[in-house]
Structure formats: structure tokens, C-alpha cells
């Protein structure tokens, strides 16, 4: 690392890894419940496990993004973070809010709106927390020597993400209105501004790893985020087909959300072609695997599997079934899980000064987690498609269908074990690197 304050990133990444571990535990609780083993029902009912699982996902990814920003911004702006102590305070408060929310979910303390379960009083703390984070990032950028496109796109993504949290905090009496604005947060995050953050991190990694000229990479970054917004903003319509708004959304949502894979395709082509074009071969092979991996897997998971059920004629049948869980898992993992893993793999040797490039554990982590997650996606897909035909086409009762598809959750759990083993290896490697050290400065 070039700047001492970059080491703050390490602790955000550590928090990420901790929360991811917990997320996986709660995922297993749900998989077992789907198989019929719900011995924990009294203490951790399904709705608790579900809220914990999805909220931990959001928080560990955000923590990863924040860590990435704390590493990338000083390097891009050529300036130390303006206030390191405040950054640490922000980390601790983020962890505290997360922990309190998750404990609350075990005691029926929540808001009960998918992905936005955090109770209102804690929402305000989240706002303060994010404002602190943005304050540090934006001031550093402002005081810095230069403002690169990569750092601007990354910061823009983070600022918009914060702004878009607000519509989720408005109370509506009408469930349709509630749902309408909930998607302003959820959809415009994951199919909009989070892609800006992902694009920014990806551009930074490609500049560092491939050595391709910054001007070339940043030009394509603009094209990618342009495609993201052009398709993604009106693509919000694919959540408005069947919630009580008009038919215009069937057409607008159908057309624009069908274009959404283009942004991910562009991202995949961009990463692969920059890699092939690059003359510099960076020794950090693990970081390279995750960087190319995230670009390709996000195209498959978020792009293609999203396209598979985004047209209104298909979505009429798949809406609200396990087909959504199929797409959700590979999309979040490919686009956002893996980009966080990529930036961690790239930064760890720089933060700690230990160059454990190309280790067997690191490669095992990459392959096991990815093959495991692909297997999980297939299991969800088979269960979901069977559910669609039996329940929506043939009219079998929900419960009977769930009995029929139980077996697919055994496959899911086996694949999830493989995934978890991969993550285990990754975290083992993370711990083996040790803490950031002063000797790592000026690498």
C-alpha cells in the first residue's frame, strides 16, 4: 500500500468475512427447514433466518464496498484518508447497528419488508453511518491531487446508493405504493448504482493487474455504466408487472430489462479483452481469477438467468417462486460477492506485505466456492421450474408441491457444503495473511 490510512480497509474486509460466515449458517438453517428438518423453529423461525440471511448479505457486501473505497480512494486521489479515527468509528458503528438489527430479528423486532427489515430507529443510524463514510471519502477525494474517472464512478455509485436508501424509509398505507418504492431501493441498488460501484472496483483492478492504459479502461467504464443505467432504470418495470400498477410497465419493463444483460456482457468482454491486451502479467493470480470470475459469473447469474424470467409472459408464472431464488443466488454471488473477493485478494498482499500469490488454498477456495454456487443455482432452478409447472400450471396445492420438490434441497445442501468449504479456505487464507503492517508501506 502507498498510504498508511489504506489499512482501514483490512478491518472492513474482516467484518465482511465474519458476516458472510454467519450468512451461510442461516442459509443452512433454511435449507434444512425446506427439507423438513425445522428443529430450530422455536428459536429461529424461518422468517427470522430469512431476514438474517438477506440482511447479512447486504451488510457484508456494503462493508466490502466501503473497504474497497477506503483502499482505492487514497491511491487514486494520492492523498491519505482525511480522518482515520472517524473511519474506525464508522466501522464499529456499522458492526453494532448490524448486530443489534440481527439480534432484534430473533425477537420479532423488524419492519417486515423484504431486504429492508431493519427497524426504523436503526434506519436513522444507518443514515448517519453512511453519511460519515461518504464524508470521509468525498473530502479525501476533494483534497486529493487528482480525481480519476475510476474514483469518480466509484464515489458516484456510493453517493447514489445512500440517496436511494431514503425512498425505503417512507411509510405508505397502500401495499402497492409500498412495493413500488421498495424497488426504488432494492432494484435501483442492485441493477443500478451497485453496478457503478462494481464497475469502479473492476476498473481499478484491471488497471493494476493488466497494466492496460487507464484512458482505455476508463473509456469503456463509461460505456458500461451508461448501458447499466439506460437498461436498468426503466428495467425497474419488471418489478411492476403484477403489483397493482398499469400495463405500460409490462412493455417498458419487458423491453428495458431484457437489455440489462448487455451491461453485464460488456463487463465480461471488457475484463477478458483487457486481460488479453495487457502486457504486464501481475503475479497475483488469485486476484486475477476473481476479477475475471466476477465479470463472467455476473453475466451468467445476473444477466442471463435474469433474462430467463424477465419477460412478462414468463414472469407471470415464475413471479414469487423458487425461480427467483435461483437467479438471486448466482446474481448476488457473481456480481457482488465475487467483486468483493477480488478486491480483497488483490489488496491483502499489499496491506500485509506478505506475497502469498498463487497458493493452492487460494485456488481451491476459488473453484470450490464457484462450483458449489453453480450447483446450488441448478438445484434452486430445478425446484423452481418444477414448482411453476405443478403449482401454477397444474393447480396442485402449494404444500403438496413443496413435498414433491423437497429432494432438490438435499442437492442444494450438498452443493452449499461445497460452497461453504470454498469460503472456509478463503477465510483461512485471509487469516494466514495476518494484519496490515507498517513494512507493507510503499509497495
Amino acid at each position: 500500500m502507498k498510504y498508511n490510512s489504506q489499512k482501514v480497509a483490512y478491518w472492513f474486509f474482516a467484518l465482511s468475512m465474519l458476516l458472510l460466515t454467519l450468512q451461510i449458517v442461516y442459509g443452512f438453517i433454511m435449507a434444512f427447514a425446506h427439507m423438513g428438518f425445522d428443529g430450530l423453529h422455536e428459536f429461529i423461525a424461518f422468517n427470522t433466518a430469512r431476514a438474517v440471511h438477506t440482511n447479512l448479505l447486504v451488510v457484508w457486501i456494503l462493508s466490502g464496498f466501503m473497504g474497497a473505497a477506503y483502499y482505492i480512494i487514497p491511491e487514486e486521489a494520492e492523498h491519505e484518508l482525511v480522518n482515520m479515527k472517524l473511519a474506525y468509528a464508522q466501522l464499529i458503528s456499522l458492526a453494532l447497528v448490524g448486530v443489534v438489527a440481527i439480534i432484534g430479528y430473533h425477537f420479532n423486532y423488524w419492519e417486515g419488508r423484504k431486504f429492508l427489515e431493519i427497524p426504523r430507529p436503526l434506519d436513522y443510524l444507518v443514515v448517519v453511518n453512511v453519511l460519515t463514510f461518504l464524508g470521509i471519502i468525498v473530502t479525501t477525494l476533494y483534497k486529493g491531487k487528482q480525481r480519476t474517472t475510476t474514483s469518480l464512478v466509484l464515489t458516484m455509485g456510493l453517493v447514489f446508493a445512500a440517496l436511494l436508501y431514503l425512498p425505503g424509509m417512507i411509510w405508505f398505507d397502500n401495499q402497492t405504493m409500498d412495493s413500488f418504492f421498495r424497488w426504488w431501493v432494492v432494484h435501483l441498488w442492485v441493477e443500478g448504482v451497485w453496478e457503478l460501484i462494481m464497475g469502479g472496483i473492476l476498473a481499478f483492478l484491471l488497471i493494476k493487474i493488466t497494466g492496460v492504459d487507464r484512458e482505455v479502461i476508463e473509456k469503456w467504464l463509461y460505456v458500461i455504466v451508461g448501458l447499466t443505467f439506460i437498461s436498468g432504470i426503466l428495467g425497474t418495470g419488471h418489478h411492476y408487472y403484477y403489483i397493482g400498477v398499469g400495463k405500460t410497465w409490462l412493455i417498458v419493463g419487458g423491453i428495458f430489462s431484457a437489455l440489462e444483460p448487455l451491461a453485464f456482457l460488456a463487463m465480461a468482454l471488457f475484463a477478458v479483452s483487457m486481460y488479453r491486451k495487457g502486457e504486464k502479467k501481475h503475479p497475483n493470480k488469485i486476484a486475477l481469477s476473481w476479477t475475471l470470475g466476477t465479470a463472467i459469473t455476473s453475466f451468467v447469474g445476473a444477466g442471463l438467468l435474469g433474462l430467463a424470467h424477465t419477460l412478462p409472459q414468463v414472469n407471470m408464472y415464475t413471479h414469487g417462486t423458487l425461480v427467483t431464488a435461483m437467479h438471486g443466488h448466482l446474481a448476488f454471488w457473481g456480481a457482488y460477492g465475487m467483486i468483493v473477493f477480488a478486491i480483497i485478494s488483490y489488496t491483502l498482499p499489499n496491506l500485509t506485505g506478505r506475497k502469498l500469490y498463487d497458493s493452492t488454498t487460494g485456488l481451491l477456495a476459488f473453484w470450490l466456492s464457484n462450483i458449489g454456487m453453480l450447483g446450488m443455482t441448478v438445484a434452486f432452478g430445478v425446484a423452481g421450474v418444477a414448482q411453476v409447472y405443478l403449482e401454477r400450471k397444474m393447480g396442485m396445492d402449494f404444500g403438496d408441491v413443496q413435498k414433491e420438490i423437497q429432494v432438490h434441497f438435499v442437492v442444494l445442501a450438498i452443493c452449499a457444503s461445497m460452497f461453504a468449504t470454498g469460503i472456509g479456505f478463503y477465510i483461512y487464507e485471509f487469516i494466514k495473511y495476518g494484519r496490515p503492517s507498517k513494512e507493507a508501506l510503499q509497495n
Partner: protein
Amino acid sequence: MLSKSQARTFFLGGTIITFVVFLGLSWTSLTKEVPKRTHEENLSAEVIAGKHLWESNNCMGCHTILGEGAYYAPELTKVVERRGEGYMRAVLSSKEPWAPRGRKMVAHNFNEEEVGQLIEFFKWIGNVDLNGFPPKPDYKSTINSK
């Protein structure tokens, strides 16, 4: 070949145009369509109290409504039509976990007033115009038909 400033114009221009269109469409939907399609005049205090109960117990953590939520328990938008009030009263006021086919629901043990509010909420949402969702099963066997 495309220059960096052209790429930036593409990004900014595309974003601004689509965002303005999105805001316009949203405005029309929320002011013209939603009041009519959701029968906003029927949003009584009871329905709203029902929505509160729906949220404060995180029903969406297992069920879906308007197709949104989790996939562990049945979709409830048309539950009044499908199950009827009597069945719903039994489920909602149950002191033991309701467990059809062994899959347990949290025993919410709602009192009579709360049960009434939830049923009003479900009646209201069952009447929202959802462009045909959830679809009616349309499978017919051809083996035994003449």
C-alpha cells in the same frame, strides 16, 4: 473510434433521459393508476392496521404477497378467495404452530381484533387489479377427454 468524452456523454445523456422518462411514468402510475386499481377508497383504518400487523410480524419472511417475499409458505394475495375467512381465522388465532403437511408456521396467537384487521387487509389486497396475477392453472389432460 469512440473517445472518452463521447463515452461520458453517452453515460450522462442516457442516464438523464431514462431517469426523466422513469420519473414521468412513475408519476402517471402513482397518481392515475394506483388509486383506481387498488381501490384506495377502501383503505379503511382496519386495512391499514392489518398492513401494520403484516409488517411487524414479518409475514413476508415466509409468504409472498403480490408475489413478493419468501418462498417457504403460500402466496397470500388471493387467500380469502382460496381459503375463506373461517380457515384464516383458525390459522391466525392458533396457539400452536399451524403445520399443514408438517411445515410449521409461527404461532402468532392473534386476538380477535387483530385477526379481523388482517382479514380486512387480505380482502382489500385480493381486489387489487394485478394484470392477471396469480395465473389460473390451465392444464387439462388429453388422455381421457373425448
